């Protein structure tokens, strides 16, 4: 059995009308992702990568680079205009974009987890922190109240949210704690694959460090594969074994994170690394 969990090929997303010149007139060499002929935006084009069990893959780039678009498609928040993705779930392979909407929602609810930069996207602020986690457990057909309570409490404890706050509404929580609840919720179904989209952006440095530690611990304990999207080289350096660098919708460089940081090939990556030092 291969250790592969995800295989992405030719993934593309173009917003708007498409014309035959969209691809040739956008990208890093044109310094834009907007087609000058028809005005379409090439959010992502021809993204390819493989992800292995327990691995953390980083995607770094500035806003508009296509890093979040890529993750959104893989989490079914958006549909690609071209390309494919295969999810290897145990012995079963799923051609992700060939699944119907119900199958996609089921995969997303039970096999994937997502942590958004904005906790309002990932959490329901009308219900308690525990209720948020319960919702995911209920989606995967757990119907035992005491077990749901125990599991939710354990998950919150694991992400260092006090059990005493379990029945409180997350809107009363600090930003760092809201992210911890999001992570607990994402982990509720023990998914083999987790997406993290700028999860530490906007948090205090000390809170950032604690969240990043937590993510690493989870990876070690549970062997969860993750895709970490960020514009912060520090996050990549700490978390990701391998990294894709994206700009204007294209992957301009990819490889082992250490290698990219030591010996960046693309001029953009060189600037990025230089500015971070």
């Amino acid at each position: 059995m291969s250790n592969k969990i995800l295989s992405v090929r030719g993934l593309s997303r173009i917003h708007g009308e498409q014309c035959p010149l969209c691809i040739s007139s956008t990208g890093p060499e044109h310094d834009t992702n907007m087609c000058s002929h028809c005005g379409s935006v090439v959010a992502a084009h021809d993204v390819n990568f493989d992800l292995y069990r327990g691995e953390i893959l980083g995607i770094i780039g500035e806003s508009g680079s296509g890093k979040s678009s890529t993750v959104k498609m893989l989490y079914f928040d958006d549909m690609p205009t071209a390309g494919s993705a295969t999810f290897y779930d145990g012995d079963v392979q799923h051609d992700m974009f060939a699944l119907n909407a119900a199958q996609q929602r089921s995969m997303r609810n039970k096999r994937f987890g997502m942590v958004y930069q904005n906790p309002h996207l990932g959490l329901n602020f009308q219900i308690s922190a525990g209720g948020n986690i319960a919702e995911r457990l209920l989606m995967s057909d757990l119907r035992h109240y005491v077990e749901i309570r125990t599991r939710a409490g354990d998950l919150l404890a694991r992400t260092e949210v006090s059990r005493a706050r379990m029945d409180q509404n997350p809107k009363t929580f600090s930003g760092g704690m809201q992210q911890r609840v999001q992570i607990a919720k994402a982990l509720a179904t023990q998914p083999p694959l987790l997406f993290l989209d700028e999860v530490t952006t906007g948090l205090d440095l000390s809170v950032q460090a604690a969240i990043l530690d937590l993510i690493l611990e989870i990876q070690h304990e549970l062997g969860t594969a993750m895709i970490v999207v960020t514009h912060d080289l520090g996050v990549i350096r700490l978390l990701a074994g391998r990294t894709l660098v994206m700009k204007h919708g294209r992957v301009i460089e990819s490889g082992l994170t250490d290698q990219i940081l030591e010996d960046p090939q693309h001029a953009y990556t060189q600037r990025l690394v230089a500015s971070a030092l």
Partner: protein
Amino acid sequence: MNAHYELPLEDAGYSFGFLDEYAKKEVRRCILKAISIPGYQTPYASREMPMGRGFGTGGLQLTLSLIGEDDTLKVIDQGSDDSVNAVNLRQFVQLTCPGVDVTEKTQEATLIQSRHRIPEKMLTEEQILVLQVPYPDALVVVEPSEARRKVMHGEADYSRLLVKLYEDVVRFDEITISHRYPTRINGHYVIDPSPIPRWDVPRLHQSPALVLLGAGREKKIYAVPPYTVAEPLVFDDIAFRVEDFRDANGQRIACRCCGSTVSFLDELIDDAGNITHQCSDSTYCEEQQETISARKRA
């Protein structure tokens, strides 16, 4: 219209069953679909009836589409044959369906239209129960958009409804849904069983009688076919509980009229401010009283 125009008065006569035959046939087709997909809310072109939306127009369209001259009809509201709305509906059916018999006796009826109650007496395979429905969709409390609710029903995704129950238990140590208790039919669709008390929900389960539910304003028909699984939505370790009619000492309160301790009770406050109880199902209560007096005579 010119001032000398006269309304043709003979036009006001109504055909059997009020609705035109095409409309009744369409409703019957929807009923068949609803029975074929237990618990599924079948949309239909609900007609305007001569009583208010919300007064049982959905149930009435079912009744009028099904009723024939051989039928015997019972109409109840709040368990009583004589409450204003029941009287009103029964009179309307009698007016527009000449030849149809009406009864107050549950066992005599072939068709029973009811609002908010299922009769205490067990129904049979020969009977159809029509329930009037104000809100057909149990998901409306967690999702206002009908289009999105339709997808959730299709995928049997009731997690948000269950989260509401979870939050209830967390906050109150109790599920606070008092009536209209979400009930899962045949393992898939969760229905709003109409505003019957929780007391009546277990009687939907494996009911020998066909149960049809009609929402006139919301334009939906759904069904619990005979001998179908109907389970209130609960957690595995928290039991579904019906209304509790025990007094402070834990004694079951009896009906003040017939003495029954096994029926759903109405609570009454008399002029002196005392609380008393009597059966909500008036026919059941009267029959109990007759049985008692017959026994006394004997």
